[in-house]
């Protein structure tokens, strides 16, 4: 018995070591990483895989540059947003954002390593420094922005939660699902919204909660559930990979606001700024009609001061971010502007077509609005 205690004690220690290393060398903003802390970590736990989260002003960019590649946490199971295609390449809207960020930092959109993370492990991966940025259709919410130690960069996709049902079930409203079973993925805001909305409507249901998107939709297509719920974009995307996409309908209800966007961990304001202004550059590119095709000619003939500042012909906005002055040029040249990224992954020519709706420029009645580049 005593041995058992000792062994369990060891296990607890081991897990604490892992947890400890995750947060160990993460000083508050403005504080520098002291040598002592690094020494403590390595001396105390030499055998454990030491993951030191690089945080503190400017530390993340330094780490990324030293490594020579950005590590980006993405989804691998939602076509159109983050998906591994038939050739084993990552593609999707969220994936392209990572490429844009790599282009801004390195002038090379291929210097990015994609790390697929599940909904459940994504925040831990970010906090422990396993990934530099999380771009995985993640909903912006208060708890995640504060208690979980993340900073949401900006909304890149305005979404809402929907419900998909088999067409032959005859279900048209959420009330029709009374007494039914609903498939949902664990660790998501979707799971919480479902409970909220159904409680408000007074509809009783049984949740069937799965660990990842693949098993959620596998169980749904086996008929385990009467409906499946996630963000509408996710439903559209996943419907394309069901056996018979036309046999399923997405109900005309929106159960919640789901602002999706990338996020970084607390403590490195410079990194936050770089990530945020990369989003704004994508917006601005569409606003000023700078595309990957015309960026060179625009650069050669630019006269509008804001375009010149954006492309680094005037002023030194890039240097202020800690990057080079042609950071935005590489974003447009190598990845494109917001519209191009959108159409490549979610446009009318793709199987995962989602009308732009709120995800249009403010000038077109949407919500995309970049602050001035000056």
């Amino acid at each position, binding site marked *: *018995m005593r041995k058992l205690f000792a062994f369990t004690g060891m296990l*607890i220690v081991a897990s604490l070591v892992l947890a*400890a*290393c995750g947060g*160990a060398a993460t000083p508050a903003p403005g504080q520098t990483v002291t040598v002592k802390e690094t020494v403590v970590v390595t001396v105390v736990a030499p055998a454990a895989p030491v993951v030191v989260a690089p945080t503190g002003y400017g530390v993340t960019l330094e780490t990324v540059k030293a490594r020579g590649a950005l590590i980006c946490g993405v989804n691998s199971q939602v076509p159109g947003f983050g998906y591994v295609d038939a050739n084993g390449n990552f593609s999707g809207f969220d994936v392209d954002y990572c490429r844009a960020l790599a282009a801004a930092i390195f002038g090379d959109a291929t210097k990015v390593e994609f790390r697929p993370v599940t909904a459940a492990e994504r925040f831990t991966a970010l906090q422990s420094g396993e990934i530099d940025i999380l771009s995985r259709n993640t909903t912006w919410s208060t708890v995640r922005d504060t208690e979980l*130690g993340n900073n949401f960069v900006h909304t890149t996709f305005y979404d809402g939660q929907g419900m998909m049902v088999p067409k032959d079930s005859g279900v048209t409203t959420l009330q029709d699902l009374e007494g039914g079973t609903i498939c949902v993925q*664990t660790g998501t805001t979707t799971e919480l919204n479902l*409970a909220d909305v159904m409680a408000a409507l007074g509809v009783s*249901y049984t949740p069937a909660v799965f660990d990842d998107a693949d098993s959620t939709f596998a169980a749904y297509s086996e008929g385990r559930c009467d409906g499946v719920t996630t963000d509408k974009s996710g439903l559209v995307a996943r419907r394309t990979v069901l056996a018979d996409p036309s046999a399923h309908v997405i109900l005309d209800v929106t159960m919640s606001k789901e602002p999706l966007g990338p996020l970084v961990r607390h403590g490195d304001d410079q990194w936050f700024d770089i990530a945020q202004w990369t989003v704004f550059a994508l917006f601005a590119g569409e606003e000023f009609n700078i595309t990957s095709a015309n960026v060179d000619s625009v650069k050669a003939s630019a006269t509008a001061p804001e375009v010149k500042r954006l492309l680094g012909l005037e002023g030194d906005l890039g240097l202020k971010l800690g990057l080079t002055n042609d950071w935005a040029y590489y974003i447009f040249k190598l990845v494109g502007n917001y519209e191009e990224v959108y159409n490549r992954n979610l446009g009318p020519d793709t199987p995962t077509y989602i009308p732009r709706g709120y995800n249009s420029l403010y000038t077109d009645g949407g919500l995309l609005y970049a602050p001035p580049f000056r």
Partner: protein
Amino acid sequence: MQPDQGQTTAVPFWRDERVLKILGQVIFALMILLFFAEIIQNMQAGLAKQGITTNLEFLKGVSGFDISETVFPYDRNSTYWQAYQIGLLNTLVVSVVGIVFATLLGVILGVARLSTNYIINRLAAFYLEFIRNLSLLVFLIFWYLGVFLKLPRVKEAIIWPGNIFLSNRGVGIPWGIPTASYPTFRLILIFGFILALIVYFSLRAYSQRTGRAPLTILWTLLSFIFIGLIGWVILPEKPLILDVPRVEGLRLIGGKVLSPEFMALTSGLVLYTSAFIGEVVRAGIQSVSKGQVEASRALGLNSFQTLQLVVFPQALRVIVPPLTSQYLNLIKNSSLAIAVAYPDVFYVANTIQNQTGRAVEMIGMVMLTYLVFSLITSLLMNWYNQRTKLVER
């Protein structure tokens, strides 16, 4: 005149074995303490710098999510702590059901493996070899996606005799619904149980005193059933009404509906663990020397009596310790529930951790939970082991 004393005082303390022994222990203990202190302090400092504190206050918060299988009433307004308890009880249910059925099946398999009937023997051997060499996770997913979700939809449910409904929404079996007189009936049953125990022990004492072999088990069971029947007849209202499952709208209602997740998890765990228990039982039986069997046959005991009175009591000494580890394995393996979406304690803790970001606390709680479950099981089994050991002369 005291050469010995002179010698001992001459040894300096750093070369005195007795002192060194204690000193070694103290230094080792100090190192461990320091290690712990450093680790915990390090973790707290790290978390504090990210603005994350560790405490259990969050467990009082509203959970905001629903759980599919609940032992007591639970909804989104319940607290995280209640959600955790639901998970705890679900794990307990799966473990107890799993251990009971795995033991029954395992003993049958172990005996069948040694049967002189060629077909039974070969079938058991094939089963044991096949199941033991599978991965449990794969096996569970096979039962879930390959068997229980492949059952027909609710409206085309297969109905087995005895009103057993098989559908991909679950397996519905008839179940007794307690009525107003049930609490009284339960008291009667407890009384019957105590009486049965008295019968059992007095018959055993009688048998040990006189050397005769009364049908102890049979009389014990009969006395329990007799009391139960009397209770059932004399109560003005039937204590239990038989409720039969039926299809209503999108779901099965009535009776007891066992979800596909529960069915997949328990069938997977039972069939898997029973194969190991079967091997343990076979080894135990084979450990009893052949002379014992021959002697008991020579005394005129039949083969069942030989097994029951001579072989099994001796085999138990060999069976119980490895059986304990199989039970522990089953309890710990039940955490694979997450693969088939059954809300056990690990699954619920995962959800809570996700929604609150309290990784350290939740993982700590889950480890503690499995530790306590396992320690209680070991404790009971060790106690049983002590008892079976006493049989030995």
